[in-house]
């Protein structure tokens, strides 16, 4: 297995260990292919619209490109009752996940014979603090849910893995470890990609096949489901060298990024680049008309810099750094993609000639996401 690397980050970026809330957006945007929706239809909070849950209540203002624009009436009229759930075994948990439309999580658990459980508070992207902030702020709920999961899967010990640099979360979790002796805290080095299953299991000496790795967001979703609630919010980190200060904001899913930026963010210079989901694995967008979904965790707003692309100098650093040993240089020259590519972006990062290697090697990922 390849040695992981530590990515150098901008040390001038300072993050406050607190979450700002933006839970009253004027509009939210939800995709739908259902043509029965009409303008002025009323949408309740917690209402299921295909695979998405409405995070506010209000009427449909417009429908464009199969996206509903819902105007918030600030009444929070909800369709569900908050009834606490009890789970005793794996089947109960799977039913709960299905009920709360946590289907990807259900798939992850359903097909696995689980003997070990790791909850990861490791953010993969350098400028993302989502997982870290969930642990730092909801540590009590996380530990309680983890305890429930351990009983459900009949596992003796659960591990919370966090970076050894995450002081705040280490301090918080240590304060509750006495209450849950079956939960252990594991500190992992601050290395890029360490949160990936294969590396984390290897570092913690756990079997890959039977270890379930959940993210903090997964556990928070289960916590909410156990309380009878849908997860309607998501935590995003907004940072970059073109901002007055970097912020961590809890926003309603479906909110337009533009609205968040207008309310919270002070932008220094008018010429800037916007990256969604980080500089390494993310993609560049041209404006703030980005709908915040559950998958979005990071927005980086950097001063515009002119990147000069040189010709390939044949240094081989892209091959040396690729965690999957892909011959990146060959793929780039022959303009073909590799099925193995995980889109980690290390080749782009290391390339001294600034060539867009990831965009070629990872099957058209750049264009797809931009569309």
């Amino acid at each position, binding site marked *: 297995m390849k040695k992981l690397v530590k990515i150098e980050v901008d040390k001038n970026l300072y993050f406050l260990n607190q979450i700002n809330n933006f839970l009253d957006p004027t509009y939210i945007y939800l995709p739908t292919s259902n043509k029965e929706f009409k303008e002025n239809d009323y949408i309740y909070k917690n209402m299921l619209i295909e695979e998405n849950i409405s995070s506010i209540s209000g009427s449909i203002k417009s429908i464009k490109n199969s996206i509903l624009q819902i105007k918030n009436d600030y009444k929070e009229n909800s369709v569900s009752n908050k009834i606490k759930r009890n789970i005793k075994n794996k089947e109960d948990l799977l039913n709960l996940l299905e009920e709360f439309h946590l289907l990807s999580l259900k798939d992850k658990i359903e097909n696995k014979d689980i003997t070990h459980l790791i909850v990861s508070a490791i953010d993969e992207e350098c400028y993302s603090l989502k997982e870290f902030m969930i642990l730092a702020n909801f540590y009590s709920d996380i530990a309680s849910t983890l305890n429930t999961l351990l009983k459900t899967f009949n596992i003796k010990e659960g591990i919370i893995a966090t970076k050894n640099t995450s002081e705040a979360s280490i301090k918080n979790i240590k304060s509750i470890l006495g209450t849950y002796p079956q939960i252990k805290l594991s500190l992992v080095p601050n290395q890029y990609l360490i949160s990936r299953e294969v590396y984390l299991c290897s570092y913690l000496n756990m079997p890959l096949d039977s270890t379930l790795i959940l993210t903090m967001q997964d556990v928070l979703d289960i916590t909410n489901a156990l309380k009878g609630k849908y997860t309607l919010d998501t935590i995003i980190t907004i940072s970059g060298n073109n901002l007055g200060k970097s912020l961590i904001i809890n926003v309603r899913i479906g909110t337009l990024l533009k609205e968040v930026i207008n309310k919270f963010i002070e932008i220094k210079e008018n010429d800037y680049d916007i990256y969604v989901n980080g500089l390494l694995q993310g993609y560049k967008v041209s404006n703030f008309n980005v709908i915040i979904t559950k998958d979005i965790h990071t927005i980086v707003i950097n001063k515009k810099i002119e990147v000069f692309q040189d010709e390939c*100098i*044949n*240094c*081989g*650093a892209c091959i*040396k750094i690729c965690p999957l040993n892909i011959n990146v240089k060959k793929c780039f020259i022959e303009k073909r993609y590799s099925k193995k590519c995980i889109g980690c972006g290390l080749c782009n*990062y*290391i390339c*001294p*000639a600034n060539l867009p290697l990831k965009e070629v090697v990872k099957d058209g990922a750049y264009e797809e996401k931009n569309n």
Partner: protein
Amino acid sequence: MKKKTTRSLVITNIIFLVPLIIYGVFKNGYLLYARNLIPFYLIFKPIYLTIISVIIKFTFDLIINHRFSINYNLLYMVLVSMIMPYNINFIIYTLTLTVIYFLTTLLESKIKFNKVCLMALIIILVNSFFYKFTYLSPLETKFNFAFSFLDLLMGRSIGSISSTSIFFSLLAYTLLINSYYYKKDMPLAINLTFLGLAFITYLFNHDLSFLLNSEIIFASIFIAPLPKYSPYKVKDQVLSGVLIGLITFIIALLFNNTISIYLAIFLVSLLGNLKKDGKKKQKI
């Protein structure tokens, strides 16, 4: 890990070459002046050669691209200036380098070869039409020296104008191996192969200067691993390193110890080309 650009890689490499140039000024400038063998202005001959190279490179930049750029060509030009024999004539050097730089730049897109070695070898060849082919400085022409191990390590040996300090070359290597971009296996493969073979001859003739050749160490550290002209896979780097070491030994034994490494690097870079062509044909 910090990201580097082509520009910063070139600058870092040139910084590592500066101590060697300064040592060149001391050995092939100051020491000769102190013995009244050269006039004062020639103390800085190594620097003049480097400046001429850089001016030629930037002039071409200005003519072709209408702007100066710091790229690998700058490093190549600095390296060429460092591996010239002491008796190189300024005019021959300037004219030949200008022509050969232009021609190699044109040829480069069609066939890959180690530009530094080819340029250096052609300039040395042209110079030898007008002056005697020798790497001796005026001091070394007058006296015979028996170099000790320390002499050779510090750079008092016979060699190019700014590349004789094995100490500074090795110091640069110990720093360069920390760079993610440096092909550190190649110098090791070259030197281990050459030293292994040269040690056998040393057992017979006890010629330490053949064994500890500053040119081989300098070229293996700075010229052979130049990214553009060396393989990008570690296995191929080791393989071509061994090949360079072997060819260097044969040429050094049969012909000339000083230019053997440049010839070997050039030949192996050409061989790499043939290998690529062969693969392309197989695909078709």
